[in-house]
């Protein structure tokens, strides 16, 4: 069932068993798991079914520290969420990403990679991915024309990505959600506040507002925040009328440890003989799988570096591509329309043919994990949005470990290229001085917001426990990448969907519902 909350009489009371706040990848994945159960699921989405400037404006906020993208365009505020402009990159987090690493302060998840494996497999069909297999050997056997660079895999290895078409959750799952008898979807239902009991230990209800001036109340047994890392933290902090520090924030952890993936062109690879780039190629809507260069776990440990990968982008001119942070649109609408245009061209057969597969020159593009840093954080601004909710301010702060990790990564790749006798690596200028810890203004990121309600066994170190339950508030949970204690090297979507499915099973156990044990 679907209701536009602007059409309801103001001060309506909405009641259910499970209330999901946010209908992006996490919220929709969670709701779909509850179809055809005896429980009433309330799915609240702040926007409508199409991207709108007025809704994106509610996400506008300040950024300080390292230059960052506009907040109102890096996340989408409508049904389907940021899947409305994502590129479909999917890979699993590595086992090392879940472990405590002595050289990475605040690292370690309260669960291991093995806890997520069954959920990774279940997430694959939701994202229209291929088989749950990220072993390079499997893909090379399938297609012998894929040729890895001849590097020592003990020094520089390959990590496999698969590509969602990309699945636009808002388009693909709209009918399923609306037609599900036990799911009530409310659009234009922005949650601006969580109300609790006097001790702040139980969420009684949430307040919903929209730009039409309507306000409503939603009550449920369980509540799940499935906004995004910035909005989840913002809502917890803004719910401070009963608990001055905000909810889940007894130890000042909400909003902290904001993490991104540093994404930036870092070097060039020049080959003495052109080589096939088919294994490394990505063409939107076409490519199903590709590999990126990666550092084996033992090497990360030996060198005390973060996890990161390098993709190869063929080029025919010795020229640096423009920095993404310089070209990213200021408007969420523009990002969605850009993808829609690409899809239209592709569907009409107007997309340029795949490029030739032998190149001698490549831009090397890094995706590097950010070390969890409590100073990198989301806080509340004094300025309020049009619904009267304090805006979020993002302070993005990096440490020298990220830059040293990037430089070391390229030292290894350069070394391997030399040993193999295939070519040479040339670093970009801001990476050349090993003593220089500064970052260029052209440093970009992946629009991968993570960590602001991180998982930890202890409420003194995290916001949610191993089951994504907010410490101290048994009926409040968080879904999505805001729960990640570390960010890994992989794009977060597959992992956040997997973690959400795991949360769903946990909620079903709480409510004594059967869980899916097979894909």
């Amino acid at each position, binding site marked *: 069932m679907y209701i536009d909350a602007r059409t309801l009489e103001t001060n309506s009371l909405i009641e259910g068993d499970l209330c999901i706040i946010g209908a992006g990848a996490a919220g929709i994945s969670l709701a779909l798991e509850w179809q055809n159960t005896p429980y009433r699921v309330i799915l609240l989405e702040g926007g409508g079914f199409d991207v709108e400037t007025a809704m994106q404006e509610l996400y506008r906020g300040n950024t300080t520290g390292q230059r960052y993208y506009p907040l109102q365009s890096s996340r989408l505020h409508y049904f389907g969420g940021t899947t409305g402009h994502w590129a479909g990159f999917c890979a699993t987090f590595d086992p090392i990403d879940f472990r405590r690493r002595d050289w990475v302060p605040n690292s370690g998840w309260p669960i291991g990679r093995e806890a997520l494996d069954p959920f990774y497999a279940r997430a694959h069909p939701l994202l229209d991915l291929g088989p749950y297999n990220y072993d390079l050997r499997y893909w090379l056997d399938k297609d012998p024309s894929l040729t890895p660079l001849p590097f020592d895999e003990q020094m520089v290895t390959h990590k496999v990505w698969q590509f969602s078409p990309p699945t636009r959750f808002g388009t693909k799952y709209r009918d399923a959600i609306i037609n599900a008898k036990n799911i009530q979807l409310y659009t234009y239902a922005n949650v601006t506040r969580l109300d609790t009991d006097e001790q702040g230990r139980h969420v009684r209800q949430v307040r919903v507002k929209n730009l039409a001036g309507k306000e409503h109340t939603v009550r449920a047994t369980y509540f799940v925040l499935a906004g995004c890392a910035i909005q989840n933290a913002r809502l917890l902090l803004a719910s401070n009328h009963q608990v001055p520090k905000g909810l889940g924030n007894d130890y000042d952890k909400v909003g902290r440890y904001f993490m991104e993936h540093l994404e930036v062109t870092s*070097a060039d690879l*020049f080959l*003495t003989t052109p080589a096939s780039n088919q294994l490394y190629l990505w063409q939107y809507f076409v490519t199903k799988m590709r590999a990126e260069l990666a550092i084996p776990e033992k090497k990360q440990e030996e060198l005390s570096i973060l996890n990161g990968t390098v993709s190869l982008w063929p080029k025919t*001119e*010795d*020229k640096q591509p423009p920095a993404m942070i310089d070209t990213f649109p200021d408007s969420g609408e523009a990002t969605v329309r850009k993808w829609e245009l690409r899809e239209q061209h592709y569907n009409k057969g107007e997309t340029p043919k795949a490029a030739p597969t032998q190149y*001698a*020159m490549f831009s090397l593009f890094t995706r590097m994990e950010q070390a969890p840093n409590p100073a990198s954080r989301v806080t509340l601004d004094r300025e309020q949005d049009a619904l009267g909710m304090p805006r979020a301010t993002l302070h993005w702060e990096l440490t020298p470990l990220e830059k040293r990790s990037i430089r070391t990564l*390229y*030292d290894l790749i*350069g*070394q391997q*290229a*030399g*040993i193999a*006798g295939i*070519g*040479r*690596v*040339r*670093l*970009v*200028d801001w*990476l*050349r001085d090993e003593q220089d810890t500064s970052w260029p203004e052209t440093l970009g990121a992946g629009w991968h917001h993570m960590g602001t309600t991180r998982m930890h066994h202890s409420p003194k170190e995290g916001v949610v426990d191993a089951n994504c339950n907010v410490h101290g508030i048994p009926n409040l949970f968080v879904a999505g990448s805001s729960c990640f204690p570390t960010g890994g090297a992989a794009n977060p979507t597959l992992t956040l969907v997997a973690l959400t499915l795991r949360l769903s099973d946990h909620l079903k156990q709480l409510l004594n519902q059967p869980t899916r044990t097979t894909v």
Partner: protein
Amino acid sequence: MERRHFLGYALVAALPTPMLGCGNRHARADQTLQLPQALSQLTDEATVRRIGKAYRNQVPLEADRETLTNRLLEATPAAFVSRSFGKAMLRTLLDLKIRRDFKDGRILVLEGWLLSQTEARQCALYSLVTV
């Protein structure tokens, strides 16, 4: 801007034979020593010179032709620089040295390029010889 090709043999062949105090052995080797084989396929002359100058600034003790030549010819059997074997053998040996440099971590970053020490020395020699 297309990748510029190093002029390679044509340029080296056009240079006058260097006059060294160290004897004919080094003189015969010089032309091959000056040519960083792999790098010369990947970048242009001006870049090789800049790399060479950067190496000489970084390692001032190796900033002259004689020292660089001696370093490059270290552990090179005399036969490799004799007329009868010619340039090919010396080039092969240098290539092996370069790969060994990379394997053993004798790698420098000069003008952004991750190069073996042997290549860096070759560039340095080239920058002195072709001013």
